[in-house]
């Protein structure tokens, strides 16, 4: 079986989903496509179950915050076809004020903790997730710390100035 070609793969996806799937990049041979949240589960299911592709392994779900964009949260899915040894990256841009997206737990049980982590750090609401609560941070943390409006350090703090360390 020959290696699955990115061009063929994207053509097939375009045939199935039309303009709801856009190719945005291909760094280091990693096909990166964009879709919208209404189609993400269908797209993931197609990639997972289609005998031609068999992207059966969900490598990761995470998110990126782009404060300058209108839809400022990008949820990123990494899939791996163990049969073809080909990876694919799928991005979904959603609103930063009301970040909601369907949960992928219907397809992979492993998505459970990945989505909890993404919720924990970015506040993305995964609709249909069985138990969406924080996983790494303390339960009563008032913010989603990986969002860029959150300050990295406390700017008012004085007890760690160089002066106290003889510098």
């Amino acid at each position, binding site marked *: 079986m020959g290696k699955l070609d990115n061009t063929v793969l994207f053509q097939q996806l375009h045939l199935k989903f039309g303009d709801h799937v856009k190719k945005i990049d291909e760094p280091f041979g990693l096909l990166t496509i964009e879709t919208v949240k209404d189609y993400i589960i269908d797209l993931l299911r197609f990639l997972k179950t289609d005998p031609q592709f068999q992207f059966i392994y969900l490598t990761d779900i995470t998110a990126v915050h782009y404060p300058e964009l209108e839809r400022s949260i990008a949820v990123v899915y990494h899939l791996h076809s163990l049969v073809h040894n080909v990876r694919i990256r799928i991005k979904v841009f959603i609103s930063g004020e009301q970040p909601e997206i369907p949960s992928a737990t219907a397809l992979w049980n492993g998505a459970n903790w990945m989505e909890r982590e993404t919720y924990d750090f970015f506040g993305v609401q995964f609709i249909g997730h069985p138990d969406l609560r924080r996983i*790494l941070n*303390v339960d009563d943390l008032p913010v989603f710390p990986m969002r860029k409006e959150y300050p*990295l350090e406390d700017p008012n703090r004085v007890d760690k100035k160089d002066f106290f360390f003889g510098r």
Partner: protein
Amino acid sequence: MTDIKLAPAPPGVTGSGFFATTLDKAVGLARANSLWPLPFATSCCGIEFMATMGATYDLARFGAERPSFSPRQSDMLLVMGTIAKKMGPVLKQVYTQMAEPRWVIAVGACASSGGIFDTYSVLQGIDEIIPVDVYVPGCPPRPEAILDGVLRLQEIVRGESIRRRESPEYKALLESYGIHNG
């Protein structure tokens, strides 16, 4: 054969067949020279403490022969390493489980002030959740520095009044940390 140096007797009145001193000083002498340590090690400072416990630096010379891994039988809590905010309640529970009198040493920059981890997930010094007696600087401190911290704690213990733990000031201190079993 080396000369064995005994802990010096506290000041007192001595005569033929008797030695008189205050109860405070006698108790202080006993407590200071049998501090049972409870290591609470989370990172590299803990590795330095392992060297401190080992044969070369030999913490046991100072009466800390028995590292206690149960808080209920230990006197001296050594917190070594970065304490994440999620670890905070665990540390506080360990401290609460210790019987009075109890002392705390914050070993290293992270336990003392959060160190380089000035971030949302790290406790900025364990004195935000439990009272600390001695701070050992360093990132990580050398075993000599940890030993120095223990010796300074011994000085504090030697001079402590046996009534201190019943005093309203001490109770207010614990109350300010939200610890009610004092």
